[in-house]
């Protein structure tokens, strides 16, 4: 194993550590919500994406900490307080930009079922965490073994197809198989893909200083990208019927992701410069739910800066441009705009199949197929694709958090 491999692993381990620390804190440590509420909220969130793996995992934990099994029969059997959260869950998962301070007010002023601000922030963090975790689960193809009922009870996580560590290694045997099956496509083809991508990055790097797009053009590029993300949808929409056992958590299955661009013409664009995680979100979270802001901040940070400077067979590549493009594309899909970013770059760096994959994972992870996974970046290593997944889920989590926290801030002022 060479040096690069080692350092890359170390980075993953770092991320894993930060991830586990956050999750442990959210679920086990001191917090405003009782333990069984936390797991139930996790189930609610994962169920929005029909992620049966996470749901099963938390059903067990939920029962283990003394949760009432009746609640599992559906949200309407849970306390009114949790039912109230259903609306926010839906919005967060599919259309976070629609969250207003009125939603927050409804939750906080519901007589005896009202949430406290601290509880709400805890719940919001849990919801966003599990939404994005569901994305990751689908993105990496982690699925429960359907044929063994209750088989999750006492199994250590590594038995479930693959554990997170194995995935991050990228050399798991299952994944190797995928490499082979996916690799047949046509090596030469995909080889050129990588070359082309590299070339584009180089060009962008160089020409940036020379030719500067006009301001109007920059502004319109964001709008274009936003609008375009609407058309990016995979053609093979094979309808996934939600498994019986989880569908009970839905009140409204029809309520899915709606494209921002289609509906959002009247919704003002979210300017990161006016409300960003580092300055505003962090302070709010840390104030209402101490220490969590720090943990999440660390996690975002590690995920965003995670790189091992390789692209497929190339080494020592500065991937920051690519990572930023991916991150900003995801935020762009949620209507979040960075003033200091040229959205034209996205179009150059991310090809269609990749956009389809990103969009599916972030917005409707339950619809992702192995074909999609295989069809983007064919020449890249699986570990790199998993890296992309990490980037996707953290960007998604931040986007959801930003909308929710902004609404809370507006409620507070």
């Amino acid at each position: 194993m060479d040096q690069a491999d080692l350092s890359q692993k170390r980075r993953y381990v770092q991320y894993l550590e930060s991830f586990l620390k956050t999750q442990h804190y959210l679920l086990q440590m001191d917090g405003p919500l009782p333990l069984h509420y936390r797991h139930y909220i996790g189930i609610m969130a994962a169920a929005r994406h029909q992620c049966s793996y996470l749901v099963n995992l938390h059903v067990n934990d939920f029962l283990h900490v003394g949760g009432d099994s009746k609640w599992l029969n559906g949200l309407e059997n849970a306390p009114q307080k949790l039912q109230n959260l259903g609306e926010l869950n839906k919005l967060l998962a599919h259309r976070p930009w629609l969250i207003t301070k009125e939603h927050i007010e409804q939750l906080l002023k519901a007589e005896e079922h009202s949430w406290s601000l601290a509880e709400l922030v805890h719940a919001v963090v849990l919801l966003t965490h599990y939404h994005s975790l569901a994305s990751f689960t689908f993105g990496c193809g982690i699925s429960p073994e359907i044929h063994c009922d209750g088989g999750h009870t006492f199994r250590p996580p590594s038995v479930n197809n693959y554990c997170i560590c194995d995935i991050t290694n990228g050399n798991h045997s299952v994944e190797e198989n995928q490499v082979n099956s996916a690799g047949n496509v046509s090596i030469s083809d995909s080889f050129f893909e990588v070359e082309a991508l590299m070339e584009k990055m180089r060009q962008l790097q160089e020409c940036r200083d020379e030719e500067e797009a006009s301001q109007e053009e920059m502004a319109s590029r964001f709008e274009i990208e936003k609008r375009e993300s609407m058309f990016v949808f995979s053609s093979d929409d094979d309808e996934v019927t939600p498994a019986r056992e989880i569908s009970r958590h839905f009140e409204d299955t029809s309520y899915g992701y709606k494209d921002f661009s289609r509906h959002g013409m009247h919704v003002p664009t979210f300017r990161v410069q006016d409300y960003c995680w580092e300055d505003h979100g962090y302070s709010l979270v840390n104030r209402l739910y101490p220490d969590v802001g720090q943990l999440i901040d660390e996690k975002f940070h590690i995920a965003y800066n995670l790189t091992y400077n390789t692209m497929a067979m190339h080494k020592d590549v500065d991937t920051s441009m690519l990572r930023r493009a991916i991150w900003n594309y995801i935020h762009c899909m949620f209507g979040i705009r960075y003033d200091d970013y040229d959205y034209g770059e996205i179009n150059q760096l991310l090809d269609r199949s990749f956009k389809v994959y990103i969009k599916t994972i972030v917005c409707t992870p339950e619809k992702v197929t192995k074909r999609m996974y295989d069809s983007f970046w064919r020449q890249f290593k699986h570990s790199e694709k998993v890296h992309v997944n990490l980037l996707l889920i953290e960007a998604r989590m931040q986007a959801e958090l930003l909308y929710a926290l902004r609404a809370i801030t507006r409620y507070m002022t």
Partner: protein
Amino acid sequence: MEKMSRVTTALSSSALTGHTMHCHLDAPANAISVCRDAAQVVVAGRSIFKIYAIEEEQFVEKLNLRVGRKPSLNLSCADVVWHQMDENLLATAATNGVVVTWNLGRPSRNKQDQLFTEHKRTVNKVCFHPSEAHVLLSGSQDGFMKCFDLRRKDSVSTFSGQSESVRDVQFSIRDYFTFASTFENGNVQLWDIRRPDRCERMFTAHNGPVFCCDWHPEDRGWLATGGRDKMVKVWDMTTQRAKEVHCVQTIASVARVKWRPECRHHLATCSMMVDHNIYVWDVRRPFVPAAMFEEHRDVTTGIAWRHPHDPSFLLSGSKDSTLCQHLFRDASQPVERANPEGLCYGLFGDLAFAAKESLVAAESGRKPYAGDRRHPIFFKRKLDPAEPFAGLASSALSVFEMEPGSGSMSWFVDTAERYALAGRPLAELCDHNSKVARELGRNQVAQTWTMLRIIYCSPGLVPTTNLNHSVGKGSSCGLPLMNSFNLKDMAQGLGSETRLDRSKGDTRSDTVLLDSSATLITNEDNEETEGSDVPADYLLGDAEGEDDELYLLDPDHAHTEEPEYVLPQEAFPLRHEIVDTPPGPENLQDKADSPHVSGSEADVASLAPMDSSFSLVSVSHALYDSRLPPDFFSALVCDMLRFYAEQGDVQMAVSVLIVLGERVRKDIDEQTQEHWYASYIDLLQRFCLWNVSNQVVKLSTSRAISCLNQASTTLHVNCSHCKRPMSSRGWVCDRCHRCASMCAVCHHVVKGLFVWCQGCSHGGHLQHIMKWLEGSSHCPAGCGHLCEYS
């Protein structure tokens, strides 16, 4: 002052005048900056860029710099700065990474002068050199700082922080070549403008981003920094290592910090989130702000002192789209509103209390601190050394010491340990607890338990005869000598019991309404029993009288609950006395003394033989067997519990609550119960009564309490060989594949109590080791150590 007058003459005007005032902007402001002449202010934001003239009564819009048909991102300002040498020159930092300079002297409507598009990310801060006309510095999200010479088209030099985004850059006011920059990762760097290759000095100032910094206008080395970690720190940079000289803890992340002119130790801060106020702190006094401006309704984004030598005018811009001028004399001063008081417990239960002298003086006239009997004794007073700051006069410090012995809580510990709270029938629990209380000399408590037992157990659970028997046994215990003593104690107990009733306003008035003579007598009795050793016969008479009342009043008042419930409670323990007291001639005598019982000769007569006194009890039992269900007393019992709790004996309240369980729980609201439980558990834990406290937690029915012992139940085990945490569930370490914590005697894994010698760290099952040590004093593991177990 000298300097001030010089400056004002330089400005050829008298001192600044104005009012606290504000004006509405069309959009949220991101930053403000003041012109050199202190008469104009520029406000910049995402969609606003205007210059206002500050007039006597109001702000007047003077110029809108946001011109052009299409709003360009170049105009979306993150920061703005007005040149302090040239009043025509401004610079803005745009969110898209462009640095723009503006020349107000341009004749056209568009005053935009130069455009620097060198930064790749948002520019967070721009700063003009304080004395050089053409030098502009910028700091950006991309981690670079650039120095521009306005006479050239591009940057003169680029400084790479080698860390993360730059949040603030500030030229030193005193050192021509130095500037400071702050970073998102908590670092502060000091640069020499001539050396772009590396920074002069770097140190970590905050945990998390440092949002702002400001050089002290007079003190060469002082730099104030504010960060997301809610701190403002003042650094002395003249020393070899940057030294933190002051630290102010605020309540929200600090977005801006500005030293107050002419006030060496004052600085103004505003926060990034949540908190909308502007504070002016005296850094030597980091806990209470010296002044506070509360005008804004949303976060304040920019602050600036109007004139570099006038400490009384502060300008601010806010997200709530207003521009404000604050006058220092109109600020609210939290210090004035605060009552500076401190209260602290010492290690041995001493209590120290400090307060403003005026407060203490006013109160000491009427002996204010007698309230709590547990800390009554010592009252010592001395003056604090004079306060270094104005605003506070002298304060007084009082120390209350515990009287040795009086504060002993051994009764509490004993009671806690010996009380039985569950696992036996109610009657037995009450009897047991009553006995415990009596043995500890707490007769009132003992009485209460006995009463509870009778109230709740007599009708259904225990046959009447049986009850009488046990009551008789309960206190007489076949020791006739003890009787009189007992009796007296009980009388005292009773006395206070009655006082209990008296202390409750409504109950008393009821009683008075019901029968004033009866109450009167009770009161009389109390006083006398307390004061002298009058034999208990009074009580007897009292009891009789009460019994009479019961008989007499029942027909009239059977329908109203309140007047009656007082009676049985008092009647009962008295009847108890009857059983104990050897009847004698005094009985009759005393009876005659109390006019009130005149009608009850028949009863008195029947007292003579023991048997009939029993029968009397039976009769009265029959009385409330038929008419008064235990529910009837619950209000009274609740009052009793509250009484105990208020007296500070929360132990009694909780114990009764647990023992009686469902019978009273519903009558006391959840919160009170929780409060009692929490305080009792807290007390128990202070006395290290872990077992009792856990039992109480377990027996409590309130959810908030019973989940107390659900938290942090994890036990972390490290392998004894490799010292690594044991992650798997078994007792075998996955790293060294050996069993952990083996018993040195039986060589099995110890899963329960493990005892080990601290010398050789061998050990095993508690019983095994104990057994081993009977035979040998060497270590069972054969290491040759002479083990010692304490």
